[in-house]
């Protein structure tokens, strides 16, 4: 998985490419734990993300909880597979998906 970050003052955009699964989720988790300081607007760009597994969802959930305390978070460019997973797991209601 490839992770690209783009910080613009209090706004952070993270673009993911590849698969967010059991193996790669910890990578994202580690990155986010140090990058959210002072971030008020977090955007996760899934344009090039193939799929997401429950491990990825777990990271999204903890991140969402954290962002609820300091600003907002949104997920953009979600493909069909990922949208279905969001739907069946109820994450569509938790996340802001654009």
């Amino acid at each position: 998985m490839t992770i690209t970050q783009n910080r613009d003052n209090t706004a952070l955009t993270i673009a993911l490419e590849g698969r967010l699964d059991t193996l790669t989720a910890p990578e994202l988790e580690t990155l986010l734990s140090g990058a959210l300081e002072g971030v008020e607007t977090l955007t996760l760009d899934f344009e090039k993300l193939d799929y997401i597994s429950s491990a990825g969802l777990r990271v999204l959930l903890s991140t969402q909880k954290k962002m609820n305390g300091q600003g907002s978070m949104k997920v953009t460019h979600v493909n069909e597979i990922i949208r279905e997973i969001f739907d069946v797991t109820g994450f569509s209601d938790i996340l802001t998906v654009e």
Partner: protein
Amino acid sequence: MQRNRTEKKRKLRNGIALNIIGAIVVLLILFGSIITTIGYFSFTESLKKEYAVTTYHMANTATALINGDHLDEYLAGEETEEYLRTERYLDAYCKKMNVSLIYVIAVDTSDYGRFVSIFNLLDNTVGDTSYTKWELGHQRDTTNDEYRQKYRAMYEQTAPYETVYRRRVGEGLRPHITTMVPVRDSEGKTAAILCVQRPMRELTDARRPYLLRIAAGAALMCIVAGVGAAMYIRTQFIRPIREVSDEATRFAKENVKGEPLGRISKLDEIANLAQSIDTMETDMASYVENLTAATAERERMGTELSLAATIQEASIPNVFPAFPNRKDFDIYASMTPAKEVGGDFYNFFLIDDDHLMIVIGDVSGKGVPGALFMMVTNILISDRAHLGGSPGEILTSVNKDICEHNQAEMFVTIWLGILELSTGKVVAANAGHDDAAICRKDGSFELFKTKHGFVLGGIDGIVYREFEFRLEPGDKLFLYTDGVPEATNANNGMFGMERTIEALNRFKERTPQEILAGVHESVDAFAGDAPQFDDLTMLCLHYKGKGTKMNARELTLDAAVKNIAAVTDFVDETLEAMNCPKKTQMQIDVAIDELFTNIASYAYAPETGKATVRIETEEDPRAAVITFIDRGRPYNPLLAEEPDITLSAEERRIGGLGIFIARKTMDDMRYEYRDGQNILRIKKLI
């Protein structure tokens, strides 16, 4: 119809009245005639007697006028003074006494056939006669025997007098009576006979009014008796009978009990009839009431039974083809209960994609008890089979359950087998059931004899042993209950196993459905009109195999998270070869990620162990089947609690999502713990 019957009855009734009254009138007329006739004859008799006596006295008096000693002189000589005087006296007497004729004759005593007249006095005015006077010495012959006998009686003096009646005499004569008395001489001997003739007019004159009176009396009696009888019959017989008849007609039409007739006639028979009708109505009304209640009850029972039959039918697979998507086997079964519901059953279902369970059973009883027991047994077996386990384990466990609650001490024979569809291997157990019959490809049906365990529900704690055999593609398996070989015909002959096999082989090339129909027809043809005695259940499986699972590939590696990519790549290789759509492949990859992570994280923790991943593909429908096998601690992911996906982010807990995602995105997911292995199988249609 009703009116016709009433009219007929009325006619009949009139007939009875007319006949009875007519008979009475006829009898009375007969009776009157007899009385009249008897009266006529006795009257005539007594009057004749009286007449005769009177005439005798008249004749006797006349003899006093005649000197019996001088008769010969009169005949021999001239008409003497004495003769003339006597003749004068007699003539006067004749006229005075109002008789037709007084004559004195001397009869020749040699044969009494000839006589000579001495005196002859007549008065033709008395009897409207036209006699001519016989002169003295006038001779006559007689051939009339009655006269001759009576003349003799006079001369021999055996009777004081004799009388001759002449009712119908010739021309110029009238009915008359002639009384003769002897004219005696001084010695007392008969010298001549004096006859006095009187017409019988007085007799007939007196008789006519008498006859008229009697006839009138009899007629009056007839009328009175006839009218009386008619009235009596009408009030005591006809009217009550009509009432009874009307009431019976009404009751037949309305079927409702009416007012009781009561004692409507003094005649015991009629009164009893009326009472019988009253009693009959009461009895019929209550009988009809009971019958109605009983019929309603029977209808209710019938409805319940037919509903029960529907429930029972629905409790076993009864829609065929049962697995329209499966090309690797064909199965058909039928159950024909002897009564509305039966104690036989069959069942089959896919435990998982590769294992077909087949069971057939026969409860020791028919009808409702058998059906209840069958339902319980079938459910216990299905439930137990779904939990996993071998046929022996299933039967052992179900036997225990049944024995615990078997108050009725019923039992059931079972043949239970699990067919591994990919290999044709059958593991089976037999609890006292009939042996199966197997038809090898290009062969014939033959009994497949195996060891039998004890019946289910008989003894608690029995362990059922298993046996194994293999079905090759093209083989057929036939299971049945004893209703087939023990079907009986009218002569109590049994269909038997030989005929069963024979019937099977006649249809062995056909489909399972046609084979069962053929056997059923053969049984029916054998049994004829004899009622079906036992439930009749059959099941036939055609194993086709034909390698529907292709390209099975297996990969065994350490159950570790780092190997997920290797597993995914291994599976993707097959999927790509199948031209699997990208999206489907991604979904499968997610599922592999979730499930393999699960095994890697929990199966052997904290130790490590091996895991095997098998990928197979299917046609019709096209699908990928991935099986994960590990020897770690038993864990059924299907029993994991589902996450509550409606909670907010703050409330959501991490965990359980992975299996949930896999279950939601895959088309089928099955788990089995067998031979120390967790076997988890997922299937995704492509």
